[in-house]
């Protein structure tokens, strides 16, 4: 790892002013991606600003409309939360599939969503549930947030302070993990809310997380496995690598979509 300077932020405002003062700063959530990336010298920020001690970014709040999760909440806190289990069990299930128990004890939802890894789990839940990303500067709809591979609508000094997930009528998640990394080779999050169905796919698309319009159109307003039986997905937008061809992933997305619908 190249040399860097560590700064611990005490509040969101403090974090933002520390970022402004830095030459080439990076915010640090749990560090489950940033630290390995720095160790491999693929990232070399001059300064890292640790958000782990910002009290305003902790906690999970439930109300009639859904769940609001602080940007600094860890994956294991989401997986174990009684409020999340009651309102959106698919979200709790998804959080429990990320990495391994030790990674889940440290990694945060804000960090994962801001990083927008094309095979991460959380982006599919944000897009599938139509979440709102709340930052220190504004609120961004998930549909406008995920721009491309590791790219989001966030500005350099913008921090995800919380994410609001509206409560769906039904939702489900199914993931086919890469057997080595446990990242998704295809992960599909389906949600039905007031006659509207959303299908979000991670791990398979060429541009990262996306909504699968062919499956959404076939499902119409409700989740039923039978409705997508005859569909075959376009492989031209799918990722191809040593783990699977784009045709393989196109089929995997459909299989995972069926499992997610069954689980919902």
């Amino acid at each position, binding site marked *: 790892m190249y040399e860097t300077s*560590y700064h611990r932020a005490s509040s969101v405002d403090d974090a933002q002013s520390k970022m402004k003062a830095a030459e080439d700063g990076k915010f640090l959530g749990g560090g489950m991606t940033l630290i390995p990336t720095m160790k491999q010298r693929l990232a070399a920020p001059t300064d890292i600003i640790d958000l782990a001690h910002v009290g305003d970014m902790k906690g999970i709040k439930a109300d009639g409309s859904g769940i609001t999760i602080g940007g600094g909440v860890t994956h294991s806190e989401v997986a174990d939360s009684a409020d999340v289990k009651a309102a959106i069990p698919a979200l709790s299930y998804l959080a429990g599939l990320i990495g391994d128990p*030790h990674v889940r004890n440290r990694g945060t939802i804000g960090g994962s969503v801001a990083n927008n890894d094309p095979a991460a789990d959380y982006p599919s839940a944000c897009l599938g549930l139509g979440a709102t990303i709340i930052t220190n500067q504004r609120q961004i709809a998930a549909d406008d947030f995920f721009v491309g591979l590791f790219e989001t609508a966030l500005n350099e000094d913008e921090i995800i302070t919380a994410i609001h997930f509206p409560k769906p009528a039904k939702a489900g998640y199914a993931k086919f993990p890469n057997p080595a990394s446990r990242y998704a080779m295809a992960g599909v999050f389906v949600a039905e809310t007031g006659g509207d169905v959303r299908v979000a796919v991670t791990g398979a698309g060429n541009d990262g997380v996306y909504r699968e319009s062919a499956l959404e159109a076939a499902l119409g307003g409700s989740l039923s496995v039978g409705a997508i039986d005859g569909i075959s997905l376009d492989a031209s937008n799918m990722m191809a690598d040593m783990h699977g061809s784009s045709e393989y992933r196109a089929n995997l997305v459909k299989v995972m979509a069926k499992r997610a619908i069954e689980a919902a």
Partner: protein
Amino acid sequence: MTVINLTVNGSEVSGEVDDRTLLVQFIRDQLRLTGTHVGCDTSQCGACVVHVDGKAMKSCTMLAVQADGSDVTTIEGLADGAELHPVQKAFRENHGLQCGFCTPGMIMAATDMINRHGKDLDEETIREELEGNICRCTGYHNIVKSIAAAAKEMG
């Protein structure tokens, strides 16, 4: 360089570290607690697992400065003098190790697992929760047996 103060295995320690120093480097090289191992150094294998504020974490994927002010427990902190911790005892009795390289991380992961699930830890849960700990000798079978036995003992 930054001065950090933390509690390690019940004792207050402090040290001056380069900000890029990993927690595992601080534990091994500065504190000379070499029971915590570095296996893969890429967050996969779990040989470096320690408890930070009561939760299992990978000390190769954390900076020492991030642990400033925290309470850290390493494998050296589990036994009560000459009396082994129940998880350590169970690994010995059930032959839960061969070369032993992964064992400190396995035991720290197992302790965290038992703290969360209690005595009703079933085999399926143990196997699933060992996702972040790699052993290349045992085939996991006796590790799983050891953890189940320790959970019963501790429950």
